[in-house]
């Protein structure tokens, strides 16, 4: 259906003499549903009966069918098989590493917290060990804050909330 066939002009051309309920918009939907096999059997019969007397709809149907015939012969290009063979491995690694990071962070917090506690209550700990504990805790805190800040910035800018977060 060409772009000129719209609105009142179209309805006069397309549906002259046809039942008032069958407006242009109704027919546009019918053509689409017919081509896309979204109609039930009675709907198809009614529409096919309508096609016998409506040239505009026949034209629209032919054009839409022609386009579909072209796209039916196309498909999204396949990647090399080697890529697909590694696909699962990549996903598994990401899942595994996220679990590993979770345990690492929890463990680090426990070790750091306990180390600081021991450092405070036990005056016999060597200075070098104290220095090591302090530097490790400071480094971990900076890393944690840096990652947190980046994640918060990304989440603020991400306008499209993931389905899983709804």
């Amino acid at each position: 259906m060409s772009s000129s066939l719209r609105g009142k002009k179209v309805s006069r051309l397309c549906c002259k003499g046809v039942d008032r309920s069958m407006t242009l918009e109704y027919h546009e939907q019918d053509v689409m549903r017919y081509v896309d096999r979204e109609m039930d059997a009675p709907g198809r019969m009614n529409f096919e009966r309508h096609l016998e007397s409506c040239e505009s709809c026949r034209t629209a149907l032919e054009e839409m069918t022609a386009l579909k015939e072209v796209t039916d012969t196309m498909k999204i290009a396949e990647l090399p098989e080697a890529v697909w063979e590694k696909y699962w491995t990549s996903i598994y690694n990401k899942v595994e590493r996220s679990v590993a990071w979770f345990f690492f962070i929890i463990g680090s917090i426990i070790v750091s917290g306990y180390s600081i506690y021991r450092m405070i209550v036990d005056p016999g700990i060597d200075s070098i060990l104290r220095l090591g504990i302090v530097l490790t805790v400071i480094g971990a805190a900076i890393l944690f804050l840096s990652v947190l800040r980046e994640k918060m910035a990304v989440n603020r800018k991400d306008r499209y909330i993931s389905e899983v977060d709804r």
Partner: protein
Amino acid sequence: MSGQTESFLVERCRAHDLAAFRELVELYKKQAYGFAFSYLKNADDALTISQDAFVKVWRAIDTFEAGRKFRPWLFSIIKNLALNLIARKKNRREVSIDEVMEQSGYDIPDKSDNPQEMLEKNEIRERVWKAVMELKPEFREVIILKHFHDLSYREIAESVGIPEGTVMSRLYHARLALKIATKTCCDDA
């Protein structure tokens, strides 16, 4: 794949069965990639986003309602990840068709024995593909889902998060745009 098999796999995933999750990944990986590609028009990004989507699926599988279809849920996750990536990379620039073609945007089966006929059909397909890639994202996604993944209106609506009426409207206008852009397509077909 039957709905029952899919439901079984999803239930096994909810029980944290990694083997079932792998099977689910193997079944949907190519569709996931194709759908991500329809947004990103870049093979590497599409691969990464589709993998990230599966990772999100695994993490959030407990929130997936029983009886719901898996593919629309997966596609909606991919869509959001892809759109976020686009926004982050400020990827509003037009990708040149040469880039898209070089990234093997589409495949065509080589069935014709007549070289001339094959050339003409290839030209038509290239025009159609170019027109698809030049559509706005909201129109391109419904065209890709309908014509290349053969989803129903309802499945597209669930995947994209819009009413069925909007799916039909966008599909209609996208097809109109393709028809206008590829006039020889419909004349020659």
